[in-house]
């Protein structure tokens, strides 16, 4: 399998006061291949979200190297990073991060606003229906997202993350705000996406969910190590 992500000696330091710093990540090394389904587990404050943000190009590391599709992310401009986020990365967040007073359709199509290529944009617009069907949301297309249940909102968020057919899906506690039954539903969606070949990283507290994944990374106090390989 082709390497999608390579991380070497990566660390992240947050300055919090003039002479105080938080070492959120310390010398992290791993590689991820295309088609992997990975769980990142760890206690609260261990640095899981920090890692995911760096992988998702919404934050940058303090030291170390991060290669995405063989591309060194360091030193990229704001514009280039935004383009990577738009084209190659799909985010699914714990609190869904949807625009509240937009319809389902408008939320899902929002990433296309930042696609400059008109042909590509129109082509992807056509994916909307298949995507909503796959996520069982076609009936709610024009409904306002405020009126949806948590599980439905998360499905809209997944649809939005997938509309640009990204290389990887990054999910930060996607089931954190959902009850067990709904969590299962969301997980089965992620599983079926993985079966289709999508690379997915899931940050979670829930060991049951982690066990369903191919590989499990554990972060302890900023140090990452792989727990087992199934």
């Amino acid at each position: 399998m082709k390497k999608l992500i390579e991380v070497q000696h990566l660390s992240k330091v947050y300055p919090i006061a003039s002479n105080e710093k938080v070492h959120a990540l310390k010398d992290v090394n791993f590689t991820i291949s295309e088609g992997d389904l990975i769980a990142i587990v760890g206690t609260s404050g261990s640095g899981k979200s920090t890692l995911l943000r760096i992988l998702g190009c919404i934050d940058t590391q303090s030291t170390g190297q991060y290669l995405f599709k063989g591309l060194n992310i360091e030193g990229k401009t704001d514009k280039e990073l935004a383009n990577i986020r738009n084209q190659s990365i799909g985010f699914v967040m714990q609190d869904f991060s949807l625009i509240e007073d937009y319809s389902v359709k408008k939320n899902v199509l929002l990433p296309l606003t930042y696609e400059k290529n008109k042909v590509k944009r129109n082509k992807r617009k056509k994916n909307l229906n298949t995507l909503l069907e796959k996520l069982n949301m076609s009936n709610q297309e024009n409904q306002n997202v405020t009126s949806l249940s948590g599980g439905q909102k998360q499905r809209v968020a997944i649809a939005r993350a997938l509309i640009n057919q990204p290389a990887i899906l990054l999910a930060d506690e996607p089931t954190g705000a959902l009850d067990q039954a709904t969590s299962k539903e969301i997980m089965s969606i992620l599983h079926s996406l993985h079966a289709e070949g999508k690379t997915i990283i899931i940050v979670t507290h829930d060991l049951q969910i982690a066990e369903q994944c191919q590989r499990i990374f554990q972060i302890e106090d900023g140090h990452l190590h792989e727990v087992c390989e199934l």
Partner: protein
Amino acid sequence: MKQLLFALEDLWKRKWLSLLLLIQCILLLCIANFVTDNIKDLSNMKQEVERVTKSEPIYYFHDLTTEKQLDRTLNQSAHLEEYKKIYKEIYEKQDSQAFSLYSTSYPFDLRYFKENVKDLIVEGHQVYIDVLTFANQSFYDYAQLKMAEGRYFQKEDLSPSKQPTSVVIGADLSVSLQVGSEFTSDEERFRVIGILEKNMSYMNLAASKDFIQLDRMILLPTPVLEDNTDYYSIISSSFIPTSNEQDLRDLMEVIQQQGHISFIYSDLSKQVPYVLEDKRKWIQMQLMLTILISAFTLISITVSYLQFIRKYMFDLGVHILIGATKNQVIVRLCSQLMILFVIANSIVIFIIHKFQLSFIVTVISCLILWIIPIIRIRKMKIDEMLRRKS
């Protein structure tokens, strides 16, 4: 372009907050206009002082007529005779330089002023226009008039028997009339010999001390004397430029002989600095106040605007998450304010017909208002923005 649409959507989404911001912007622009008006008045005032203190002495009257004297003069016609005598002494003496700042609204035939009617008072076939009489060379010097077209009154215009009567008109009236045009008031005929430049004004230093605009007034070289002419008003707003104090003493004697009214005269140039000082203090206080109010308005706009932006932080975070750059998001924020100011400017222009200043104020306030949000967004992490769910 897309960000502009998003900005419009944002404003619409929180209509009431946007409306509040809009009202504050309009307020700011209006107050800023007041501030400059005050500054203009203040500089006019300086010129006024220089002018009056430089020229030859101008004397004006203080009315010291007592209640008692008035009681004795209940007999109206006797009263009128007295006034007439004084009037003659002031104005009909040889080489009289006197002028009066007495103005009155006078009815003219409407058909000559068709293009001006919306600015004037119309009654039937007549239109009322303020007329300043005695507009002689002394007045011309006093008010430092400038002609846009034609000429000012000369000796031959001053003869009361000259027909039609020569007049000079204010700049605004030139939409209806030109040099050479004639117009009428009942039987009387008038001919325009000159048009003043725009924004000509004078100040009655002896009375209200406000600037009186001449743009919509008609100047007459001599008074329209009728039986009911308000001699008292003409006399009490008389100004007599002369370096010969003997003339004035003669005049005072005539007045004293009448017994029923008392005037004293004083030299305007000696009084004016004190009078103007008061006025200037007043304007300065007004200026201070308006500047203070505009500062407060600007602060309150800043607060409302920051509150407004706060409500959008989450949305902006989502946009960055799915592929917007920070610059695009900043363009969106700046557009919100720009749209508001464009609307505010259009409304203010509609109200006060001045554009230039509002534009400058807009640019400056936008720059001030943009600084904080731009810095904040530049510094803010995306996860921080995403936590700002309203």
